[in-house]
Every structure is written in structure tokens, then in C-alpha cells.
């Protein structure tokens, strides 16, 4: 007797159809084999299926069972084939036909219950897009599944419940769950207003949040680079529904979806491998740049990252996605993130600090800086040298009123919506993505701003790259002020944040 059960498997963050064929033969020695490039986790599935069926009060057929996972040339990994395999065998035991147009996806526990399985969101989207009527999946993954907006979800607690459903038509109830995506999940713990002083850095972060510009902080150890970087998330607007789905797909593919709508903040350690940063491995999973999609990628000790990792960032910074080609196929992961890079001014960290002695030789300092020169710097618009807070100014700053979190958030949100409106006919979302012709089109300078810019280019000997960065940053500053035309003051302010080390 042959049963065909539909399931699906993820290739990167996309799903493909997998047809699970279960053949149960009365003749021949009893055995249980899985074929179709199954790896160890799939291979072990037969023990889980066998035990789960037995423990659910059914007798496992003592026959020759062959399971084929088609198409047979895609390598299979993961534990979610447990449910389709078990369903095929249960259909034989109960002598029923499997439901039409239904997908089965989930991992079994030995007691017959279903466990939270990674990729449920992707499976829901797949079922929705390919018009499957139902998707049976573990109830433990219900929260993840609801955000897909798919009507045919069938959350299953355990095999016994599924048997009652398939055999006796008992209904599976889909409890409505709270959809967290509308809740503002930005924590106040890392709020930018918890940082005292550092008004210049906060201004830079506000500009970055508004225009999506990448930032680099240079400063001595302990000056507050990390805390500042973390606070960027608190002023970024929450993910909208479209962005949330993009992020959720990435996190679902590795089973890390938490269901809140805060923007991701990733801070990989500088010893990270090429594959860890960009994505890769077996099975191919997204890397840190994709986990930071629509959020913040914080790279502390920027020059300490390996050269190949730093250089490999160029393409994702430019295109907003990474394309990984392996012999098993090609994977595309989105990777539009705000980069916050932090580094010391020199290897010992105290170059230019008046109160500590720098012990680096000029050559060491040169070698350190060479690491972050070149094309990667093209893509960072905002640079800031952080200095140790002088206690004198620290005291005065307490009496100075600072902008509230709500004010900053409002200003950022407003300038983001201005950009949204401006670029509605373009492929880009914010000012940092402006390039060549678009800069000329959208960065309209007032006449005195133009004069100033020309003067600055000559006087400061600016490169083309710095020149274009200036214009983009000035555009964002103008947006923060709600000004349609870029004024002289906006250009003048943007000059403060140029690369000048």
C-alpha cells in the first residue's frame, strides 16, 4: 500500500515541496527504511515515529516499510519529517486515506506529542502561497504560525488528537492568539535617554536612525561606544508588517523567532568566521548580517574582524542582500541593516587622549587604520570621534534639558515618512541608499548651500565619496528639520560628521 503525504522543506529561507512517500509491504522481512538523501536527523526519525505511534496506543505494523523523500536529489535534514511519516503509517493502521491538499510539518516526541519545530512560519507562508487547504503543525509553534495570516492552520497537540481528527472527524480548535506585532516592543532598558551627555553622539544616532546611514564611532576604551550603539534600537521606529515578515522568515528558518516587533540588534564577536557573518554552513543558514536585517549590526572592535569578513561586507552593504553560492545551490538572504562600527583610535586605544599615554608607534597606528580604509569606508556616512567625558562638562550637562525619548522617536518617524513619500516611485527606502543620479534628483541645494559645499570641497580637499556622503547626510538633516530644500546650515552640520582621521 502506498501513501503520499505532502510536506515542505526549507532551502535557505524559501520552502520547496517535499512529497513523503510511504510504502508498506506485507511481504518481505519487516524493516523500516528512509531514502532520499536523508541525513542523520532524518534517519533517526524512524525511531521517533515508531515509539510515538506505539505510545499513542497504536500497534506499529510489522511489515516492510520504505519511506522516500522526493525529490530525491535535495539533501534532507531536520526533524520535521516525523509528522508526515507518522501520518502515512497511521493511515495504514487506521485504514483511511490521508486528507487532500494538506501539508504536514512537525517533529514528534517519543510520547506522541508534537514539539516546537523551526520553520513553521515559512511552512505557513508556503501553504498560503501554494493554496494548500490545511497545514498540520505542532501547537507549540502556534504563535509563529498566526503571524503568517494563513487561514488553514491546524495546530496539533499530539498524535492521538490527530487520529481522532482524521478518523472521527473531531475538530481541531485554533485558539486565537495575541498578535504581538502591533505592540511597541522597544525596550526602555537600552534607551538613548538613559545615556547622560554624549549629545553629539546622540545627534549622530538620530541622523542615522532617520536616514539609515551607517555609523562609525572612534574612541578610547570605556568611552561609551557600545552603550551608544545599543541605544540606536530605542529610537528606530518599530518594524512595520512587511518588514516584520521579512525578519520573521529569517528567524523562523533557524527556530529563533520570538514574536516581538523590536528591530533586531546583533553584535557578533570579532572572531566570527566568514560563514557566520554572511551565512553558509550545512545546512546553509543565514549569517549575522541577515539576522540584523532591518535592524542594527554592531561591529565592536571593527579593525579586529578578519580582513575577508570586512571586505565581504561590501556587497551586502551595497545591495541589501547576500547571495551565497554553494555546490548544493544558491541561497539569497536579505541583509539590509544599519551598521554601527566601533573602534579604538590605535591598538592601545589611547591615541589622542590627553590623560592616558598612548604606547603605540606611528607605524602600528598606521597599520591599524589601514584595515578600515578603502571601499568599506565609502559606505559609511557618519563618523564620530568620541572623547572621554570631562567631569566639568558632565556636571554642567545635568542642568541642560535633553530631548525626551518620545521627541526623538517622533522626529525620526516623521523624517522616515517624508522619505517614504519621496521615494515611493523608487526602489529605495531611505536617504542612505541614494546613489549617483538619485542624489542629483533628490538632494536639492539652496544657492548658499551650493556655494558652501563648493567652498568646502576645495578647502577640505574632499574626495568624491566624501562629497556624496555629505549630500546624503545633509538630505537627512534637512528631513529631520522638515525642510524640502537642503539649506546652508544642513550642509554645514553634515561636514562635522565626515571621515577625517
Amino acid at each position, binding site marked *: 500500500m502506498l501513501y503520499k503525504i505532502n510536506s515542505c522543506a526549507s532551502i535557505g529561507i524559501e520552502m520547496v515541496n517535499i512529497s513523503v512517500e510511504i510504502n508498506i509491504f506485507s511481504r518481505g522481512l519487516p524493516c523500516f527504511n528512509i531514502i532520499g538523501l536523508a541525513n542523520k536527523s532524518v534517519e533517526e526519525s524512524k525511531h521517533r515515529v515508531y515509539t510515538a505511534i506505539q505510545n499513542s496506543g497504536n500497534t506499529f505494523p510489522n511489515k516492510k516499510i520504505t519511506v522516500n523523500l522526493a525529490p530525491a536529489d535535495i539533501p534532507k535534514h531536520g526533524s520535521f519529517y516525523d509528522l508526515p511519516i507518522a501520518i502515512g503509517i497511521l493511515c495504514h493502521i487506521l485504514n483511511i486515506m490521508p486528507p487532500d491538499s494538506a501539508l504536514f510539518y512537525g517533529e514528534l516526541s517519543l510520547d506522541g506529542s508534537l514539539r516546537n519545530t523551526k520553520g513553521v512560519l515559512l511552512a505557513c507562508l508556503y501553504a498560503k502561497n501554494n493554496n494548500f487547504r490545511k497545514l498540520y503543525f505542532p501547537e507549540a509553534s502556534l504563535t509563529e504560525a498566526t503571524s503568517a495570516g494563513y487561514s488553514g492552520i491546524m495546530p496539533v497537540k499530539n498524535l492521538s488528537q490527530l487520529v481522532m481528527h482524521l478518523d472521527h472527524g473531531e475538530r481541531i480548535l485554533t485558539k486565537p492568539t495575541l498578535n504581538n506585532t502591533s505592540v511597541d516592543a522597544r525596550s526602555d532598558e537600552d534607551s538613548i535617554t538613559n545615556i547622560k551627555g554624549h549629545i553629539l553622539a546622540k545627534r549622530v544616532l538620530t541622523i542615522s536612525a532617520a536616514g539609515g546611514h551607517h555609523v562609525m564611532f572612534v574612541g578610547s576604551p570605556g568611552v561609551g561606544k557600545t552603550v551608544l550603539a545599543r541605544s540606536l534600537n530605542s529610537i528606530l521606529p518599530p518594524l512595520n508588517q512587511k518588514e516584520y515578515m521579512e525578519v520573521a522568515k529569517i528567524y523562523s528558518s533557524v527556530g529563533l523567532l520570538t514574536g516581538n516587533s523590536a528591530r533586531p540588534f546583533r553584535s557578533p564577536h570579532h572572531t566570527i568566521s566568514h560563514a557566520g557573518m554572511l551565512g553558509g554552513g550545512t545546512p546553509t543558514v543565514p549569517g549575522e548580517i541577515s539576522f540584523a536585517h532591518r535592524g542594527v549590526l554592531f561591529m565592536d572592535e571593527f579593525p579586529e574582524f578578519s580582513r575577508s569578513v570586512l571586505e565581504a561586507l561590501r556587497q551586502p552593504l551595497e545591495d541589501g542582500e547576500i547571495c551565497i553560492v554553494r555546490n548544493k545551490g544558491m541561497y539569497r538572504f536579505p541583509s539590509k541593516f544599519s551598521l554601527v562600527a566601533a573602534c579604538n583610535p590605535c591598538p592601545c586605544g589611547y591615541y589622542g587622549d*590627553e590623560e592616558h*599615554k*598612548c604606547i603605540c608607534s606611528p607605524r602600528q597606528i598606521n597599520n591599524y587604520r589601514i584595515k578600515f580604509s578603502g571601499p568599506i569606508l565609502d559606505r559609511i556616512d557618519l563618523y564620530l*570621534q568620541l572623547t572621554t567625558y570631562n567631569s566639568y562638562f558632565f556636571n554642567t550637562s545635568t542642568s541642560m534639558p535633553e530631548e525626551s525619548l518620545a521627541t526623538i522617536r517622533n522626529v525620526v518617524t516623521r523624517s522616515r515618512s517624508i522619505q517614504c513619500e519621496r521615494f515611493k516611485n523608487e526602489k529605495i527606502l531611505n536617504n542612505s541608499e541614494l546613489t549617483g543620479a538619485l542624489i542629483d534628483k533628490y538632494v536639492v541645494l539652496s544657492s548658499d548651500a551650493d556655494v*558652501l559645499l563648493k567652498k568646502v570641497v576645495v578647502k577640505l580637499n574632499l574626495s568624491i565619496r566624501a562629497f556624496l556622503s555629505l549630500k546624503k547626510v545633509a538630505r537627512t538633516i534637512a528631513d529631520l528639520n522638515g525642510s524640502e530644500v537642503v539649506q546652508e546650515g544642513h550642509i*554645514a552640520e553634515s*561636514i562635522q560628521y565626515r571621515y577625517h582621521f
Partner: protein
Amino acid sequence: MSGYVDYESNEYPVTLKNVKDAPKRLYYRGDWDSTIFSACVGVVGSRRMTLYGGRVTFKFVHDLTCFGITIVSGFMYGVDTAAHESCIQNHGRTIAVLPCGIDVAYDGMRDRLLDSILAEKGLIISEYPEGCAAKIWTFHRRNRIIAGLSKAVLVVEAGLDSGSLITANFAKKYGRTVFAVPGSIFSEYSKGTLQLIHDGANSATSPNDILDFLDLDVNTDSFSLKDASSVTIIDLISIENSLEQQIYLLLKKNTLSSEELALVLHEHIADVNSKVTLMLMSGLISESDNKYFV
């Protein structure tokens, strides 16, 4: 042009001749003109010059070269380089004393500085023959030539264990007057100079201190001219808006970053940043290391 001058030669600088362990022979590059040695001041300091050190060096060297004084220094990073550069900018003559053969480039980056020293009729000298590499001890020995050539030695910034203090010691030994520029008691790079002052060196708080010592006929006209121009700048500013004026007045007293300006003035950082850039562009203020000054 290069060559050498022996101790016995009439061309040999008189000031250096008096020194007990004067080099037997001086190798040089450039046009040897004995008048260059008539009034030399050594300017030395830390390799890791701070912003303050840079300003001091620029000011002192600028004023000294106005009176035709030759600046002697060691062609090292930091204060040495700043001293040579400021001198050249002002079209003064400067002598770079190398710790190695005159043809040995121990740092390719500064070939340009070397050329511009020669272009302004300066000299590159060394007691070591051509091809001789720099060693730790040659840096030490080189310092005695700087001290020997100079009538006075100005130490701009120095750490407690720095080479500049060695130069100052040589100068003391040879009976030269040592000037040290007082600095912040918190700065690592002023501890050496403060120590010198503590031990009896003259404190140099203005280029006039050195000019007075050298007993030069100070031409006050050039200074009054400078003051006059700054008055017009203030007038110019007072008709501008008040934030610019406030910034200008603060920076006249202090060297501040834009962040510090904003905190003191209680103004939004964006406005301060924008104003500061405009003032920088119009030449009202200067910037170094993200700090602004007038």
C-alpha cells in the same frame, strides 16, 4: 648638494666647536652657509604631540622665524616634525639633525618634508657617514648636536622618560639655556616639561621670553599689526548673530569641541555644529583633532 665639514674647518659651527664631545665631522645636505648657525634655537618635544603641543610649536616657531632664528630639531614624528613644518611654512631656515647617514631614509613618508627643508635653504646634518643606519643609541647621541648647535633649547612637550629630556640635559651640560613650556598637570606629555621647570629651567609662556633672552631687537610693528586684524574680526562678528559671537568669545578663552560648546552655551548640538563649520570655513576659527580655537 652634500658634503662634509671637519672640526678643524673654519666653516664648522662655532657654537658646536665649544662643546667637549663635538663630532669630528659633520655630513650635510643642502647649501652650507655658516650664517645659518648664527642664531639657532632647538625646538624639541614628544613624538606623540598633543593638540596643545601643536599649537605651542606653531606659535613659538612662527614668531622665532620672523626674527630670522634658525630652528634646530631632530626630524622625528610629533613636535620635531611640527617645528620643521611651521618653520618652512614661514619660509624660515631649519636644521634637521639625523640619527643616521644623511642618505638613509628611516621613514619614507617624510621625503617631502626633507625636500621642503632643503628648498627653504635649510640643512640636513648628521655626524654619521652615508649609509649608516639609525640605532637606539644614535638617537641619544644626535640630541647632543641639537643642544650643541643651539643658543637655547625649547622643550615643548615631554613625557617623564622622553628623549627631549636628554636633549635638555645636554643643553644644561653645555651651558645653554633651557626653556620649557608649562602644560596641564594632568597631561602625560607635560610631566617632563613641568619637571624641567621644577628643576630650574626657564618657563616659556610666550615667544618673547626666548626673544628677550636672545636679546634680539624685537620689532613690535609686526605684532601690533596682528592685533589690529583680530579687532576687525571681532567687529565683523558682532554684527553677525549672537550664537556665532558667543562661540567666538568662548573659543578665544578656551579650546573646545563642538559638544563642549553646546553644553556650555545650552544650545542644540545641531545648531552649534552648523555654526562652527561656517565659522571654520570663513577662517574665524581653526580646528585640530575635533577641537576648535581662535
